[in-house]
């Protein structure tokens, strides 16, 4: 099996889905001749031509709106927003058309499209290039929101998203793009959207994260096991919406303790929703308050200090120890 980076794995997913289905097209700023600013769409233009791989004008609302229209006409666009912060320019289209058209046309016009966009910090990017606002989309009825954490699940989830009959916001953790390689089988894979993955079973505490935050979390796990003799259960959420509440509840009913990690702002973030659901479905089993290790309610800082802003192994260990200490 070839060892691929996440960028290579996503690129492979696009090749395989475009090969399998002529309706799949790739559109966005600089996705064609340039192959995307992160090279995720590299080579697609040469192989599939301008009809199926095309650059768009610099207008996010136009990109998403026209992608919706194409999907109405039976095309399956994979539209790229160059950085997730610029999805704000298309917020109206996403909320009013992408998320609603199936419903408001009473099922006549489902919107089967994918919005791919790199999110998050950690690559010393300029201002406005490091946001993680997945909670906006999770709070928006009618959308699916998926965030892979590694090359293999990135490939499998992107292919599943492209097949999905409903719109999928696909957040790509850009700090993971080239961070490591992983075995990715040659043949197409699909992962079910809506399912979380227990990546490490354990009894003491449930640790939940997704996307880029899986790496500091797993770092922390090693330390917790080796030096703090904690045996955590680790869950990779993968699908933010719909959320695999069942798996989370099952785990916390077992461990009674939980720490949730994400990069986006704390208030009304994904962790708040997870806490609310655990409170509803695992209340009697909770031994300690659930802790959030998240971005703060401030603007993502300029890059010289971003590493301090981002949740890291140390802050996660701190939270786990505090949670373990509680009784």
């Amino acid at each position, binding site marked *: 099996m070839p060892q691929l980076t996440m960028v290579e794995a996503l690129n492979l997913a696009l090749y395989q889905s475009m090969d399998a289905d002529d309706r799949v097209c790739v559109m966005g700023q600089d996705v064609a001749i340039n192959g995307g600013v992160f090279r995720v769409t590299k080579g697609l233009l040469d192989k599939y031509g301008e009809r199926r791989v095309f650059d768009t*004008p610099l207008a996010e609302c*136009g990109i998403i*709106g*026209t992608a919706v*229209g194409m*999907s109405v006409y*039976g095309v399956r666009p994979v539209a790229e927003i160059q950085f997730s912060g610029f999805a704000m320019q298309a917020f109206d*289209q996403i909320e009013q058309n992408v998320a609603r058209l199936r419903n408001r046309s009473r099922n006549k016009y489902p919107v089967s499209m994918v919005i791919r966009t790199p999110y998050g910090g950690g690559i010393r990017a300029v201002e406005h290039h490091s946001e993680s606002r997945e909670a906006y989309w999770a709070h928006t009825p009618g959308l699916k929101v998926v965030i892979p954490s590694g090359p293999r699940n990135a490939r499998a989830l992107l292919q599943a998203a492209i097949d999905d009959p409903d719109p999928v916001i696909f957040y790509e953790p850009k700090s993971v793009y080239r961070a490591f390689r992983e075995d990715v089988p040659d043949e197409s894979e699909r992962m079910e959207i809506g399912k979380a993955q227990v990546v490490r079973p354990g009894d003491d505490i449930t640790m939940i994260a997704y996307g880029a935050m899986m790496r500091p979390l797993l770092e922390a796990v090693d330390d917790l096991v080796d030096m703090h003799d904690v045996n955590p259960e680790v869950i990779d959420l993968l699908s933010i919406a719909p959320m695999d509440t*069942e798996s989370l509840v099952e785990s916390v009913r077992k461990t009674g303790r939980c720490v949730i990690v994400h990069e986006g702002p704390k208030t009304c973030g994904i962790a708040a929703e997870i806490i609310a659901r655990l409170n509803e479905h695992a209340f009697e089993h909770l031994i300690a308050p659930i802790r959030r290790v998240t971005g703060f309610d401030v603007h993502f800082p300029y890059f010289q200090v971003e590493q301090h802003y981002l949740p890291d192994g140390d802050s996660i260990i701190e939270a786990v120890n505090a949670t373990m200490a509680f009784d």
Partner: protein
Amino acid sequence: MPSQTIDSTPDATSDAGGSRQGASVSEINLGVVKDLRILNEDGQVNADLEPNIADDELLRLYRGMVLTRKLDVRMLNMQRQGQMGTFAPGLGQEATQIGQVYPLTSKDWFSPSYRSFGAQMWRGWPIDQLMLLWDGYFEGFAPPADVNDMPFSIVIGSHVPVAVGIAMGMNYQQDKNVVMVNFGDGALSEGAVAEALNFAAVYKAPVVFICENNGYAISTPIEKQSGVDHLVRRGPGFGVPSVRVDGNDILAMVSACSVACEQARRGEGPTFIEAVTYRMSVHTTADDPKVYRDDAEQTAWEQKDPIRRFELYLKSRGVLTDDDITRIGDECEQEVLAGRESFRERSTANPHEIFAYMFESMPPELREQQAEYFERLARKGLSEPNQ
């Protein structure tokens, strides 16, 4: 139209070249756009421009306009009697409405804004359904199975990029169909519409933009809406061939829209049409125009009434008699009343439906919420329909 094309942007090279050699102040010609009227306000036709339309077709157009007005008056009336939700009348815009959809085939697509029930009826939306729509029932939004229309858009301008996308889909599938999309003078201020015009020009999308300039966006007159004297100037700014049309002149609307559709089918891309008309009635039934405009203005426009004008023409052409006018009026009235009957029969709300059609298959978290909601309904004695 005299020359069967709509174009405004003169060939680039002519001036571009000039300005690039030596030091100079050359000029770039922005071109001209046509301003088309075929029937004047007294129903007199300009013979050079008169389109060649068969008599029965002319009568079909006339009937469509009359039906539109009958429904308009009836729905306003129903609303005033509390039998209808907030409603946006189209009084005075019948020629604009019917003229824009006349050239469309069943393979073509239509994406209207909310003030479009006339065009929607022409496209095949049943009257009872339009009533359901305005009276707040889900069913109202469902496009009839065989009709390639989008549900009307209430969010100003947001449907326009989507319409361009449908046209891009036609190019993608190499179909020779057309998308017709309408919006108001106010909508033209929305960034989404600007982006849509640009995309259409860049991809030569087979889409026709109808800007129904009815003088107002609620209380805001066109002068406060835009810095141009004529909205038609907007199109050439994006490289979209454009034309200004008297929107109360059905013949002008039909010929301009037909030319635009032919150009689109020939692969020549989009057209922008400013249809100049007037909103003779309230913005919606929640609006009171007396607050922001005086009756004199309204009365002046009554002279330009699109139906009256067309009647004068048809009579002078010997296609229509006063008896016909009465008969057609009655037929349309009956059609509207029949629609109202079936609307009344169909108008039973189903509260259990609010979770329907969110996704192809309902995720567990929604099932859970639905169960909770159904319990709430059950406590109110509203039992679940067997589905």
